[in-house]
């Protein structure tokens, strides 16, 4: 019997191997009771090491995992995305320090699952085969299902987990159907081979498959009209996990979208650009308009995250190196902004007191000036006001749109960005210009040092990147240079 051995380049998946190994290490160490206090620092340290492993390959040639079918590649795009995920993961762990401890979910599993989810995200960004993509998506999703429901004694947490699980299973089904149709139309699941097969023009079978794939990924990035789970799940999940979901899993979804739409199906642009621009505008409109009437902070941030997914979809419509680079840059900034905003909620509600409604943060500036300041920076940045990084990120996307003659889309984006000012600034108004009702005036709780440090670092990074973003924009441009 003749067996063809693939020549495997292990170093092409070194960041993912490092992440999985770290996750297993944290899982095993977390089994010992003596580790309970230190396990989170071990997890953060291991994540930092994984970041170094990923960074060490920066700037090199793209390396494919196997010579039979590439499966996964290590290029600057993978590294940049992985670093975003790792940064998000470290911030998630830090903002959950006393939050998790108070709710008794600070066991090894909690941190191990976060690490497993990050390894799934990283592999998702690296995947150049539909099967690798699906496998990594499941690694990410299954970890998230458990993380959302990890507060199993709280009914909201259970409800969120079940909702996300059922809808996520449906989305996986759509993705599998899409993969089957694309395979039927091209005879391959390898991105390069699919790209070759479709270079002749549009193929109805492949187009249907691409549409189903878009439904599945659209669910993960909460694109309208597949967004309805977002506010419910973010509200019920533990707050650090909401932050993690709104940044990490969304970023992973966009990394795949960039690979699929910009580098695999560029020849079919005439077919998918009208569809995607329509969906992007719908997503921006739904996110921003429904956010106007929200009074719960986590739901407000959920609708804001839907709106931001819309802006990033616009960048995919713009396409080209500028469009892809602007998505990567936006994802990084967006991770920092959302981590800061959710982080403030997590830090304030760490000791069990809720901090969900707008009335709960009334007069926050007097009680907790530092979290209030961080929240204000995050809100200004989410709204896109200079000199915060949110402005630069939005500016970059709209520039890419205008350069590719999508003037109407750019105008719609800017207009809705103006609408979003209302609800972002309303949070600041409540924090700084209203007095706390007597019932809310609690003795000021001690905030965890790790959590406050994490949100302060995010806020500082937002301002720093708003003033001097050029080196990161250059990195993002280098990251996508090998994609086309």
């Amino acid at each position, binding site marked *: *019997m003749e067996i063809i*051995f693939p020549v495997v380049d292990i170093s092409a998946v070194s960041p993912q191997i490092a992440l999985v190994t770290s996750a297993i290490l944290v*899982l095993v160490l977390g089994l010992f009771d003596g580790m309970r206090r230190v396990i989170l620092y071990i997890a953060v340290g291991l994540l930092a090491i994984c970041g170094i492993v990923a960074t060490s390959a920066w700037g090199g040639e793209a390396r494919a995992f196997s010579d039979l079918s590439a499966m996964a590649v290590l290029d600057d795009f993978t590294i940049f995305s992985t670093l975003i995920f790792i940064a998000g993961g470290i911030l998630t762990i830090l903002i959950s320090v006393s939050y998790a401890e108070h709710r008794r979910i600070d066991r090894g599993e909690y941190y191990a699952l976060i690490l497993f989810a990050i390894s799934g995200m990283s592999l998702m960004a690296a995947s150049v085969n539909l099967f690798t993509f699906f496998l990594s998506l499941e690694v990410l999703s299954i970890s998230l299902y458990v993380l959302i429901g990890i507060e199993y004694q709280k009914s909201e947490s259970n409800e969120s987990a079940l909702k996300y699980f059922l809808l996520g299973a449906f989305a996986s089904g759509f993705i599998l159907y899409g993969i089957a149709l694309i395979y039927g139309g091209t005879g391959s699941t390898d991105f390069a081979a699919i790209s070759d097969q479709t270079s002749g023009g549009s193929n109805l079978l492949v187009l249907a498959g691409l549409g189903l794939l878009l439904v599945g990924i659209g669910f993960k990035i909460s694109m309208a009209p597949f967004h309805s789970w977002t506010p419910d799940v973010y509200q019920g999940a533990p707050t650090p996990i909401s932050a993690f979901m709104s940044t990490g899993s969304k970023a992973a979804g966009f990394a795949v979208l960039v690979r699929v739409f910009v580098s695999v199906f560029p020849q079919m642009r005439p077919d998918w650009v009208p569809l995607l621009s329509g969906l992007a505008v719908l997503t921006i409109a739904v996110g921003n308009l429904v956010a106007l009437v929200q009074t719960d902070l986590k739901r407000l941030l959920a609708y804001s995250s839907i709106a931001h997914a819309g802006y990033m979809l616009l960048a995919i419509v713009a396409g080209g190196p500028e469009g892809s680079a602007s998505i990567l840059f936006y994802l990084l900034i967006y991770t920092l902004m959302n981590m800061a905003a959710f982080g403030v909620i997590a830090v304030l509600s760490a000791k069990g007191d809720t901090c969900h409604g707008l009335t709960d943060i009334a007069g926050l500036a007097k009680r907790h000036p530092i979290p209030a300041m961080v929240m204000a920076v995050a809100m200004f940045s989410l709204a896109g006001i200079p000199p915060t990084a949110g402005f630069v990120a939005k500016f970059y996307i709209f520039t890419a749109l205008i350069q590719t003659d999508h003037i109407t889309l750019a105008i719609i984006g800017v207009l809705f960005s103006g609408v979003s000012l209302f609800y972002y600034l309303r949070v600041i108004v409540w924090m700084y210009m209203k007095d706390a009702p007597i019932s809310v005036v609690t003795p000021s709780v001690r905030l965890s040092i790790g959590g406050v440090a994490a949100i302060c670092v995010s806020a500082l990074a937002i301002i720093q990147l708003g003033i001097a973003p050029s080196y990161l924009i250059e990195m993002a441009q280098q990251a996508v240079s090998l994609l086309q």
Partner: protein
Amino acid sequence: MVYLPLILLVIVVVILALTIITLSSFVGRKKEYFEKLASYECGVPIQDTARKNFSVKFYLIAILFILFDVEIIYMYPWAVVFKDLHLFGAAAMGVFFLMLVVGFVYEWKRGALEWD
């Protein structure tokens, strides 16, 4: 029309099955007694109704059983061509097995295998 025989076969099968079931329910002799109508429980006399509470621990055991059962299935095809796969196969399965052992250690240490 290459599928015509297949369609004909489906039609014939459906009609035949319906005819046999209808005929036997009308013509056949019926002798009903308790043991015959009772639900099948591996041949043992039935204990109780199936709709009753049972310990959630069975569920955990069942899940763990399915997990490890399915993982073992991957080893059969590997074992058949073990010699042809040389070191490559051994290394690949080694990694897979290591992960499996980690899962086993985890469930053991967490106490999932203890009944109380």
